[in-house]
């Protein structure tokens, strides 16, 4: 029997705001528990939420980048439930009227293009975080309470784990390049829930779905879906029934494990949030945000491989993060040769970041300085060997390359009026080499170049010396 799978995703992105969605508490990763909270986050009696409008701006960016329709009249709703990490005992979310609907993401799997629909995306607040001590007590950290989230709900149009993987990668890239979220799964700024159901080919109605929550890598998503697909097939083939349930992926065994069986959906008693006035999102505002929307990864890829003539691989490495692509764009904009800039970004810069475990934001190097250095290489002012020393200095101390090269006397010696007497002298002093040259031994030139380099402490331009030496030797 043939089966068809239906896969859907609910992906939460933490929106990159300075303060929380409904309170002035700051948002940052890794702060001490409960230091970034106030009475609103604690749900103290009498407090009221207040919308941080920047949340709309970031949400609208993602909506625009996924071709979604933004609803002009938006309001928040309450989703009621008891949970220790949620002090108000309700979550403020958008239920009746989400931020946007009907978007899509284009994916390519095994050379085939496909559009995956986005059913809706809505804004909501995150809850706090519980930790369970070994002393019988549980602890709650409310730093995360009120961090703004954008939940992107796909249509159930994903046919297999590979498509699912491609969808997530693409969605992450799109969101990342809007700058609306850090999209770091390891820090929880991107969180993935997925569900899968299967049905015999030809059957119209969807099968019973199984949910998997909080998968912490794309690889886990793919493996768990693949495992579930097979498991559910076997259940059906054996005449069984798939249970409506939530399962967890066990990395060690590569299997999914039953967590809890659902007997029906929880009743969240949604209703419009009466503490917040509805907000209107005007077309003017959307247009304004569209103007500020950073270029998509796709547009950048086209430019890199087309206009700049970079290889696919180089372009993809640059596009790994928005930060590196932005840095590269700024370097090129500052006048650097695109190919040289790509080479430097993907080898020296990345190497430095990896070796020191830092981000672009943490280093002293600026795109302007990188561009300046590349220009010095390109116009022959410095050799690529010296460039490495310049880079080491600039990346560490933020020194201006031009100034550094001048101060250190590193400027490459290309002046023939200076080099010519040196060449003559070296040839005069090495009659054996002249002999060797006449006898067709090329390495004689190498030896003579080495002598001049020694004299100039490496600053002589090898290309120029080569030319001069050849001329001189021909004349002997």
């Amino acid at each position: 029997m043939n089966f068809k799978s239906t896969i859907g995703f609910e992906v939460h992105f933490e929106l990159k705001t300075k303060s929380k969605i409904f309170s002035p508490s700051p948002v940052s990763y890794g702060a001490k528990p409960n230091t970034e909270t106030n009475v609103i986050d604690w749900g103290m009696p009498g407090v009221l939420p207040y919308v941080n409008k920047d949340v709309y701006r970031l949400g609208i960016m993602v909506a625009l980048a996924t071709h979604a329709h933004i609803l002009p009249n938006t309001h928040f709703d309450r989703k009621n439930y008891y949970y220790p990490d949620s002090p108000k005992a309700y979550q403020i979310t958008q239920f009746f009227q989400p931020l946007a609907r009907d978007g899509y993401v284009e994916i390519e799997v095994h050379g085939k293009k496909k559009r995956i629909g986005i059913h809706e995306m809505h804004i909501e607040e995150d809850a706090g975080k519980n930790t369970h001590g070994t002393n019988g007590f549980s602890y709650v950290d409310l730093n995360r309470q009120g961090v703004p989230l954008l939940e992107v709900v796909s249509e159930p149009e994903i046919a297999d784990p590979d498509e699912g993987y491609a969808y997530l990668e693409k969605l992450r890239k799109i969101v990342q390049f809007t700058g609306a979220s850090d999209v770091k799964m390891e820090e929880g700024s991107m969180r993935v829930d997925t569900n899968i159901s299967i049905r015999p080919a030809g059957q119209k109605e969807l099968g019973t779905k199984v949910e998997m929550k909080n998968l912490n890598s794309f690889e886990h998503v793919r493996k768990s879906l693949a495992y579930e697909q097979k498991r559910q097939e076997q259940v059906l083939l054996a005449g069984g029934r798939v249970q409506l349930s939530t399962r967890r992926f066990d990395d060690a065994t590569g299997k999914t494990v039953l967590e809890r069986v659902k007997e029906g959906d929880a009743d969240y008693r949604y209703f419009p949030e009466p503490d917040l006035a509805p907000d209107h999102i005007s077309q003017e505002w959307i247009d304004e945000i569209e103007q500020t929307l950073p270029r998509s990864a796709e547009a950048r890829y086209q430019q890199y491989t087309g206009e700049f003539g970079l290889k696919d691989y180089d372009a993809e490495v640059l596009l790994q993060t928005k930060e590196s692509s932005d840095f590269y764009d700024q370097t090129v904009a500052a006048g650097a040769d695109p190919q040289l800039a790509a080479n430097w970004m993907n080898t020296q810069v990345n190497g430095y970041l990896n070796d020191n475990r830092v981000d672009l934001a943490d280093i002293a190097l600026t795109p302007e300085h990188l561009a300046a250095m590349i220009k010095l290489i390109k116009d022959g002012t410095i050799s690529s060997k010296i460039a490495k020393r310049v880079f080491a200095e600039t990346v560490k101390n933020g020194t201006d390359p031009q100034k550094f090269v001048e101060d250190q006397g590193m400027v490459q010696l290309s002046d023939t009026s200076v080099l010519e007497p040196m060449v003559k002298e070296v040839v005069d002093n090495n009659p054996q080499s002249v002999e060797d040259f006449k006898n067709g031994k090329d390495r004689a030139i190498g030896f003579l170049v080495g002598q001049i380099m020694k004299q100039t402490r490496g600053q002589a331009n090898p290309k120029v010396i080569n030319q001069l030496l050849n001329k001189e030797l021909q004349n002997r």
Partner: protein
Amino acid sequence: MNYLNEDIDSLNQKLAQGTLEADQLAQDTVANIKQTDDQLNAWITVQEDAKPDQDLDFAHHKLAGIPIAIKDNIITKDVKTTAASHILDNYLPVYDATVIEKLKEAHVTFVGKTNLDEFAMGSSTEHSYFGITHNPWNLDKVPGGSSGGSAVAVASGQVVAALGSDTGGSIRQPAAFNGIFGIKPTYGRVSRWGLIAFASSLDEIGVMSKRAKTSAQVLNVIAGQDEHDSTLSTRAVPDFTRFIGQAVKGMRVAVVKEYLDAVDGDMHDVIEQQIAVLKEAGAIIDEVSLPLTKYVVPDYYIIASSEASSNLQRFDGIRYGYRSKDAKDLLDVYVKSRSEGFGEEVQRRIMLGSFALSAGSYDRFFRQAAKVRTLICQDFDRIFADHDVIVGPTTTTPAFDIGSEIADPIKMYNNDILTISANLAGIPAASVPAGLVDGMPVGLQIMAKRFDEGSIFKVADFIERSNKFYEQTPTGMED
């Protein structure tokens, strides 16, 4: 001292002239409360060490040094705030409500927190964990609710003014029952930051006092401007006292047939009499109809209870207030703390609201109620298109006997039929004393279009000046 013959102007004058010391005023107030409150039980917390601010500027702050009562569902930093509930009976807030901040800026003296129906749910102040409040006109009668403590504190002369909150009539009904003035401003006029929420879309903080002008002076201080409340209007707040002493000639007054039909006998006569006085003074009186009036009680109880069920979820025994001693696990903490901590009326409304919002009922109840609410708003818009105010009775009867209705919640709910509409529509409304029926005060309700509290003050002050009810003192207290 007692404030039966005082208002803010006379106190301010004495303080400014030095014939009265603010310290003495605070001490006398506390002493008088302690002396009279055995009979009344209007207070939950009395700040015995109440002290006025230093360096009071009586010239610039009319309210400087004047003691004011605060309903105990308004958050006061470092002063116990209970909402009259067992579940919050030891709650010490860490911040001030915006209205409290504003009163502090005006150098008001705080003397304590007044009794109410638990979480402001009730019409009699019989639903308080801290006991029943008694009506100073007759100690066997209820003071009304939920702002019963604040109303009694003013009517009995314990304070000159009090803050209350009004979700379905909780300021106006007790004002009527106690023979004082009480105003619920327009929704969005006064910040709700720091008001322990009952029903967020209906709750409004307001003022109670013997004279309308006193309330206007307090409202001047607490209204407007607060970034904490996004439902607050940004429009400018007028000086409400400038409507005091104005003529009502030419004002267009609507009388709602259904409201008048809701009262009979002597009460009907008292209300008709006040309307006649207005007419005599040159107001233009029109009879209008609000046919949806019969739906307001069920509409209100669905919306208010739904919001309440959600607003009260945070009281779960975990973070503050009462926690059951014998809970064994997390669910048990929630269930036992709430079962033991909430009173019967509160539990009834939580159940009602949870049901109305549940997946199977939302469309049949909450959604329908929201639609009816919209229609009620439209009806008021229609009337206010060519009228300045609506006048009529505040309540269907004078204060009833303690214990007489508490066993019949539906009967109690129906008492609010005349006050609820103003909350559903978000319009301002007040009750001004209209006279006595069987020795108990009854109130005339005045409603106006949104943000037109001015017209209400104008009419209320006129009624006051004509019937001089403020000269009467409650008769029920023993010396």
